[in-house]
């Protein structure tokens, strides 16, 4: 068999594919964070909790209302997004104009409350969400067996990431959003409802987290803590991409997923720190992140 650096090509291709799957989750989650930070200046520590809420919304919807996976893909982000708007309107709003640290502390508190409540009601051992029938089964790629569901995750994530990027960077709505970040009072003087814009932005960012939650529900066990370790990695991804850079978060999410995948083969013990090592290097060499503006 052909080998590259002592590893069979099949192994490399396999890890590349799996890295892409994980990278898709990172990209989707860091995208939401980047949107919220880039447009509102809020460091949203509750992102992992909203991700878990998305998964729980899908699970409970299925158990109690018979809502299937496809409907949950739309409904769960919608419900969680509305909850996000409530959080923004009732809590986050009061902290604008203060040091960003306050927003970070508040959202961290919100995360603890959400995760604690989920834990209280649903226990620690978690629950399974079935893979939808249409996406069950596997594809034989020759070098590996890929579950169809994982391929679907890559497709959805890339589609959502790039349409979000397009809306924010290339449309009039996006331009208005970015203007609100630059100079909110001026935009308000033009008759734009800026508070509503901020609420919608937070709701949208949170909905992206919930969507990632629904996507991951069939893959991993749905538990209250499913987002708490992930959110730290995703923050590192955002820092590497450049705080607030939409494209940066997407690209670095995908690339870091792949790098992490290879680490799992070369030196598995380091696979949970490789992202942070890269973050440290990026911060030294290019403090604003790979895609950030100095």
């Amino acid at each position, binding site marked *: 068999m052909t080998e590259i650096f002592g590893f069979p090509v099949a*192994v490399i291709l*396999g*890890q590349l594919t*799996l*890295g892409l*799957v*994980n990278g898709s*989750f990172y990209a989707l989650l860091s995208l939401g964070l980047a949107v919220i930070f880039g447009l509102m200046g809020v460091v949203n520590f509750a992102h992992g909790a909203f991700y878990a809420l998305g998964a729980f919304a899908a699970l409970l919807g299925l158990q109690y209302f018979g809502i299937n996976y496809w409907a949950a893909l739309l409904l769960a982000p919608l419900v969680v997004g509305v909850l996000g708007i409530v959080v923004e309107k009732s809590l986050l709003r009061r902290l604008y104009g203060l040091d960003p640290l306050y927003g970070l502390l508040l959202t961290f508190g919100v995360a603890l409350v959400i995760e604690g409540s989920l*834990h209280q009601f649903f*226990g*620690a*051992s*978690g*629950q*399974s969400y*079935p*893979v939808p029938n249409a996406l069950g089964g*596997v594809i034989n790629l020759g070098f*590996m*067996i890929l*579950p169809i*569901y*994982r391929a679907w995750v890559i497709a959805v994530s890339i589609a959502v990431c790039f349409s979000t990027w397009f809306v924010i960077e290339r449309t009039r709505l996006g331009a208005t959003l970015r203007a609100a970040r630059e100079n909110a009072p001026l935009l308000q003087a033009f008759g734009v409802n800026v508070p509503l814009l901020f609420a919608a932005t937070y709701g949208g960012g949170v909905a992206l987290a919930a969507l990632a939650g629904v996507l991951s529900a069939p*893959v*991993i*066990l749905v*538990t209250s*803590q*499913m987002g708490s*370790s*992930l959110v730290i990695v995703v923050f590192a991804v955002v820092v590497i991409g450049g705080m607030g850079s939409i494209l940066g978060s997407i690209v670095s999410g995908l690339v870091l997923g792949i790098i992490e*995948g290879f680490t*799992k*083969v070369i030196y*598995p*013990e380091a*696979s*949970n*720190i490789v992202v942070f090592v890269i973050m440290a290097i990026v911060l030294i060499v290019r403090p604003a992140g790979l895609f950030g503006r100095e």
Partner: protein
Amino acid sequence: MKLKTLAIGLAAVLTTVLGTGAALAAAGDVVIGDIDDLSGTYADVAGTGAVEAEKMAIADFGGTVLGRKIVTLVADHQNKPDIGASKFREWADQNGLNVVLGGSNTGVSIAMAKVAAAKKIPFFALGAGGASLTNEDCTAYTVHYVYDTTALANGTATTIVKSGGKSWFYLTADYAFGTQLQNAASKVVEANGGKTVGAVRVPLGASDFSSFLLQAQGSGAQVLGLANAGEDFSNSLKAANEFGITKKMKPVALLAFITNINSLGLQTAQGLYLTTGFYWDLNADTRAFGKRFFDKTKKQPTMDQAGYYSATLTYLKAVKAVGTTDSDKVMAELKKTKINDMFAKGGYIRADGVMIHDMYVMQVKSPQESKYPWDYYKLLKQMKGEEAFGPITGACPLAPK
């Protein structure tokens, strides 16, 4: 001023966190302390269900012993050794503590065992797996009650190797428990003529296991040994199933609880081999206990929770027999009496502190085989206690070889 307010606030929060359900014991009461994980990974395995089991045992015993009221103190160790140890010490110094149950998590249990030795208070380690508790970390006051890594390895690994699963690949949680479990299993595998083909050490709490599983598959081994626990176990088995690996390799759980199987569902968990110290559907006694427990908690008991019930009764019976709560006398009684209840038949506590009792090698049923709720296991082999826990190793000074 501001600082003072902050300090008071912090103190208030800490008291709430640490003082979970600590009832005040009057002098003369028999005080049973329960220090376990009430909010973390093991909260469903032991947690509040274990507290419930303990209360059931006290009620069944009559609520008093030697004419003294039996009271319980409960604390969450949050999987932190220092919290477990300091709670133990605090109760010993201030609350007239007589015995402690608990300690899911080997690290916390080792810390608590040290306090038990220093304060001379019996400690029933329930839920922790590390066999070191009755070897290099043994004390005269530790009783390791439900299972340990040796028994798990002897139970599952022996059965699998003898049924033809000769080559093993391990997916190992990268911390003390995972490596202890892998070492114990590979020793058994090799002693029975099998071999270890490879192993991958997975960081604790990984969110994705597919890369590691692909390596396992690439190894060509017949058996996939899962030397991990809790969520890591569930997520790795789920992914193994999704990638079709369970069709080619035999999945083996070196530690799984019935709550894990319940959350995974039989569709995913079917065919899995595991070893347990208790199953609710073994006989009329276990079923009766299971039903009572289920009525209170809406779940069948895990082996840890059943062990809590049994350990509480065992302790109280010993106190009654010697007519005192004096730790040395109670320990002496504990080490010479047979344990017979719904958890153990003819069980006994060996000099090194291991409670020797039968273990059960199980296979998870398929959804078709399961006839009623929580009908999850079929019994492959009932293993005698001596065979499961193995001979005294000599690592514990209390029990020379």
